[in-house]
């Protein structure tokens, strides 16, 4: 479904991701973990094509068998990618319904779209009037995340990246969100970016990826998430740092 090869990324002349290679397969759930500032969001932005994140010439992002390195973000979305933002941006005066109407103008008629949006809002235990208020403007953290999920479901993309969908969300909302995602996962690939494995208890990942300092430092099955929870990231850190130093410092070797 999605393959990234030798992905190295920089922003504002700062190296952020280094040489990440991985393949995400259809119908699976992935968890991307890692401490703060390890590059999780940057990875998501790079896959979606954020213009600030410059990818190196050696890097390849292949989605549905096509290299999408130079593809405009909206075209990536049309091809089947979705990114749920860690911090969704407030859009004053724009409602989620208006946004979806524009995004889905070719696919779904307005009335059908509204009907579906209302139904999803209900399932997510969201007050319906959120749909016709300024998007993410004066909205609580949990509601913002639910609005991201609502867009994900209506846009109906094949590969969805959820960047910290579980942050700033209370226990009940988390359960609602996770249950909802589980119910709608058929035919979809999920990449869940998260610090904690709270959400992973509801949505068991097939694979866990751990980022550290912009690199993919470890992959494993869902038990890896449990280990991290118990021992913290330090357990990976110490080992990795030594390897890193040896490789980087020719005088020492």
């Amino acid at each position, binding site marked *: 479904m999605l393959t990234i090869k030798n992905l190295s990324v920089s922003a504002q002349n700062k190296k952020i991701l280094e040489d990440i290679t991985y393949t995400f397969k259809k119908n699976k759930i992935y968890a991307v973990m890692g401490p703060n500032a390890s590059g999780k969001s940057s990875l998501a932005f790079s896959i979606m094509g954020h213009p600030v994140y410059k990818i190196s010439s050696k890097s390849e992002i292949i989605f549905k068998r096509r290299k999408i390195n130079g593809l405009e973000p909206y075209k990536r*979305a049309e091809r089947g*990618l979705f990114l749920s933002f860690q911090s969704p941006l407030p859009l004053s005066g*724009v409602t989620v319904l208006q946004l979806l109407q524009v995004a889905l103008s070719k696919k779904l008629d307005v009335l059908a779209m509204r009907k579906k949006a209302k139904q999803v809002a209900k399932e997510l235990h969201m007050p319906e009037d959120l749909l016709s208020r300024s998007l993410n403007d004066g909205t609580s953290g949990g509601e913002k995340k639910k609005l991201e999920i609502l867009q994900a479901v209506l846009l109906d993309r094949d590969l969805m990246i959820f960047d910290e969908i579980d942050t700033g969300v209370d226990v009940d909302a988390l359960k609602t969100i996770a249950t909802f995602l589980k119910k709608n996962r058929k035919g979809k690939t999920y990449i869940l970016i998260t610090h904690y494995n709270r959400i992973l208890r509801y949505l068991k990942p097939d694979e866990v990826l751990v980022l550290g300092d912009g690199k993919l430092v470890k992959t494993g099955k869902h038990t890896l998430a449990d280990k991290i929870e118990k021992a913290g990231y330090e357990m990976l850190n110490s080992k990795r740092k030594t390897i890193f130093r040896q490789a980087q410092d020719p005088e020492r070797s």
Partner: protein
Amino acid sequence: MQDQTTGLDFEYRYGFSMPEKHVYKAQKGLSEHIVRTISKIKGEPEWMRAFRLKAYKIFCEKPMPDWGADLSRINFGEIYYYIKPTEKQVSSWEDLPREIKETYDRIGIPQAEKNFLAGVSAQYESEVVYESIQKELEKQGVVFCDMDTGLKKYPQIVREYFGTLIPPHDNKFAALNSSVWSGGSFVYVPKGANVKLPLQAYFRINAERFGQFERTLIIAEEGSSVHYVEGCTAPVYAADSLHAAVVEIFVKKNARVRYTTVQNWSTNVYNLVTKRARADEDAIMEWIDCNIGSQVTMKYPSVYLYGKGARGEVLSMAFAGRNQHQDAGAKMFHFAPNTSSRIISKSVSKDGGRTSYRGLVMVRPGAKNSNVFVSCDALILDEKSRSDTYPYMKIKESNTAVQHEATVEKLGDEKLFYLASRGIKRPDAETLLVNGFIEPVAREIPLEYSIEMNRLIQLEMTGSVG
């Protein structure tokens, strides 16, 4: 559905004009003789002719305003000051000449009328030729007609108010309008009458080098209320066109008037309009003013808060594209205690367009316990475009609450990327954000107009209506 959209697209982009058909056409340029001729053709009373002639003198003497937009390219000698398109006014749609009907069909009057309008008064060139007032208005004693008819049928009322709020010497363009005015609306709402549905007037300039000088007078007697809506679209011509209107509104004790403008002049028009209202005790005056199009607009709707507890409000929106300058704003004058004013201005500039907010709030000594709120937000879409604010405050009463906010925003890449991640391409994303930005003003205008305005914005942003 598809066809209709394409049709709209074509019209807005290129404008359309019907073959001109005139019974009388004045010469280019202005002279005392032309002013006399206009008055004579209209068969006006002596006092109005004298008023026009006096105004003409003032117009000749007054210098061009030099503090706002660039007006140096207006050539008064190249303008026709009066065109009478048909001999007599007609009272029903069927009686209209075919090309006039076609023009109106394109701007959608019959459809709009079907949409439960209270009355339609449409101006074709300089004379109102089509007008239908629904029975309800007559029953309530409400008068809604063109200004010329108003003068004929209600000379006393007109004489009492006409030119008293905006005298000819107010500014050069008020003087010009006072000397050559033609058409516009006359609205009289008797004591206690509440006009439920908005009164709508469509205006359209349809002659090259032709200036339009309509004159509107609205009187809302004690405890009455009315909403007047003017919408303008204009065909595109090569030569410069001048639109210099004057609107005077009297809002008596406890009355309420809302005046909504959704305007889209073609990009060669100089739109220089003087709008002023007087609000008596506990009266409410609201101007809702949307300016899209024109080459230059200078317009500062104002409210004189004369009576205790009077409230004035201006909500304005301006969009300036390539080669356009929207110099718009508001003026509020607090003369009495407990008066309050609110100005909300939203402007958008794009492709080198320029917007200016120019506002004046004056609180006179003794206007105790007054409340002033001014908020002006500018959105700039690219590096070439520009926005300035000139907010003047003259607060001469210490017991006044003043709140002033101003923001300038550039359309952010982050927001555009957010929308792109939802599969929305840039022009559509910009349109969404711009429509969101002006939403606080757009939500105040009647639905069919706000849909129209969203379409116009979409057209300005993307070059087509999708």
